[in-house]
């Protein structure tokens, strides 16, 4: 019996007859939580969010309540800004798009509540440039909400004012990094800022305290207000509360997006029960569990996971890939990360060298060019993995590839350095023989040839 989905954020999405206009949203109980929130004090809402244990859904999994808590309303004298990070560009992730395109008012309601809680009067939605229609949908939703007085001056008859504007990006992955996003919103190149300060909550947009939250995180705020923080925290597992949107793509029979309580099901259940198993009845080879930056997991691997027993003592268990529950902490203990919830499945017919060359090409294209290790290293890793994939590798390339990756992680301003190094490190370590074979100039073990139907990496001449 497969684990049942628990749709809270996706409750109405894809339901027959559910449309994106405000009347439909109101018929489904929309903006009720906003009215409730407006009767509460801002700090009380922040307290509820802290109680809920909500962790950011953008990729890092940082506690949302803690992030909000960095702004002390009793000491802060500057205006506070809120930015919704809708720059969904992590390969493998397509959850926020569903919310923006199919339930825009849910995002707005979450944003308005979050803004009220943190005393924000000007908020932006940074949406990726390719979502042209998404930006129009949100624009219309904002106009509708304004007409009903859920936005603008004196919201719902209180003395609280808020303006939300849409800001479109222009195709740069680095804008998903919060300080890069802020630079971009200030009208500059999206070069991530030097840390410290570690959080834009200290110095953010226009050098003022700024909260940057993911679309899914902000939608959760609405449900935390509805349920109360303590009740919300009962969903999922301790320190991994709430529900999680998961996007599955790659070699499964039924790819798609789902919502489950965090940790309610294992990776194996997700692939086999929910997504109908690996495509064509083939065997599982590898899974990237949290967007392409997450370290790859290899089928047949064993992980030692420490779990807390009800009496508080720790227990060490050895589990396989398919038994890993999909939560933040276990995924980290297994050496990868839950990241953005984008699960990419690869079956036994896939050539790992080609897959890595594809990922490396992505990062080489998207490096912002600010820090030398990443700017040079990402291109270098692309070149090496490319020539390996096309059978033109040199002896020693595998070592070189590892060495380049090892010299990027931890030596850059933002986490992009890790994001481009981790896939390389994990692919090379876990599939070393495939890489070594290629470095010796031998043919690919998979039936695919460059430029054939299964080609996943660029021919040497393009880009």
């Amino acid at each position, binding site marked *: 019996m497969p684990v049942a989905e628990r749709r809270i954020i996706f409750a109405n999405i894809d339901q027959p007859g559910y449309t994106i206009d405000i009347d439909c949203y109101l018929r489904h109980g929309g903006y009720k939580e906003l009215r409730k929130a407006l009767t509460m004090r801002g700090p009380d809402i922040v307290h509820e969010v802290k109680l809920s244990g909500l962790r950011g859904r953008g990729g890092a999994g940082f506690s949302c309540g803690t992030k909000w808590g960095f702004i002390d309303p009793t000491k802060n004298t500057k205006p506070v800004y809120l930015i919704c990070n809708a720059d969904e*560009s992590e*390969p*493998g*992730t*397509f959850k*926020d*798009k569903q919310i923006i395109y199919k339930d825009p008012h849910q995002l707005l309601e979450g944003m308005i509540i979050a803004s009220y809680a943190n005393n924000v009067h*000007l908020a932006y939605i940074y949406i*990726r*440039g*390719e*979502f*042209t*229609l998404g930006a129009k949908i949100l624009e219309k939703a904002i106009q509708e909400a304004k007409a009903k007085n859920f936005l603008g001056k004196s919201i719902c008859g209180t003395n609280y004012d808020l303006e939300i*504007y849409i*800001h*479109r*990006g*222009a*195709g*740069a*992955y680095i804008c998903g990094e919060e300080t890069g996003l802020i630079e*971009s919103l*200030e*009208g*500059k*190149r*999206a070069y991530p800022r030097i840390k410290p300060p570690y959080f834009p909550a200290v110095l953010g947009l*226009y050098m003022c305290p700024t909260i940057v939250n993911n679309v899914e995180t902000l939608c959760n705020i609405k449900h935390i207000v509805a349920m109360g923080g303590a009740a919300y925290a009962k969903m999922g597992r301790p320190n991994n509360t709430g529900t999680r949107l998961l*996007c*599955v*793509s*790659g070699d499964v029979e039924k*790819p*798609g*997006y789902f919502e489950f309580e965090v940790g309610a099901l294992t990776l194996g259940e997700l692939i086999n029960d929910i997504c109908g198993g690996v495509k064509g009845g083939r065997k599982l080879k590898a899974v*990237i569990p949290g967007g*392409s930056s997450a370290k790859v997991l290899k089928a047949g691997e064993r992980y030692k996971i420490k779990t807390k027993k009800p009496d508080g003592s720790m227990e060490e268990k050895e589990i396989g890939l398919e038994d890993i529950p999909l939560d933040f902490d276990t995924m980290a203990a297994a050496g990868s990360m839950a990241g953005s919830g984008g699960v*990419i499945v*690869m079956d036994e017919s*896939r050539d790992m060298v080609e*897959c890595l060359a*594809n*990922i490396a*090409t*992505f990062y080489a*294209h*998207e490096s*912002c060019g600010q820090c030398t290790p990443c700017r040079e290293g990402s291109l270098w890793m692309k070149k090496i993995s490319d020539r390996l994939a096309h059978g033109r590798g*040199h*002896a*020693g390339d595998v070592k*070189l590839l590892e060495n380049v990756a090892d010299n990027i992680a931890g030596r850059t301003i933002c986490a992009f350095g890790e994001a481009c190094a981790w896939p390389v490190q994990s692919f090379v370590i876990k599939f070393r023989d495939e890489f070594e074979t290629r470095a010796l100039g031998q043919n690919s073990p998979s039936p695919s040839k460059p430029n054939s*139907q*299964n*080609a*996943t990496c*660029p021919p040497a001449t*393009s*880009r």
Partner: protein
Amino acid sequence: MSATNINRVVNPATQTIPPEKVYPGAGDSHHAPPTLPKGFETQADELITHYPVSKRSASLPLLHLWQETFGYISPAGIDWIAAKLGLQPINILELVTFYPMFRQHPAGKIQIKVCRTLSCAMAGSYELCDYFRKKCKAGEPDGHGLAISPDGKYSVEFVECIASCGTAPVIMINDDFHENVSKSRADELFLKYS
């Protein structure tokens, strides 16, 4: 292993520099003062009001507006936007060269963008991109990966992950997403937009 194995050294004497590519539609309009369509400036002014703290923030929206209106960002456009926001032209040019969506040359009237990243690639996006290139009779891609048909009607290019991985392969034609694009679907779409 010597360094020359990795970085192939080119003898400057034998190095050839490819001639500058001439893009259909580009040419005389460069640097000529722009004729703005009616309502353009009003729209630009409205966009600037979204950023009460700093006008500079409006540079991306104005670039989008310019590109939607004129198809690409010309030097005249860079000058106009910079003047509008009280900035130096370099402040705008550096954005055009940084953000992949902005073009400095016209692309096709019908712009086909094929997602290149892993999930789509596993579903055959490389082949799909080739298929579109052949269908449009677009030549070899330029340095930015853009291939334009000789009549300037179509352009085909790869883009990085466009967040529809569950329905790979995914393409965008102008601003519309199309999912699960098989070859027969590609033919249908091609007819629809032609």
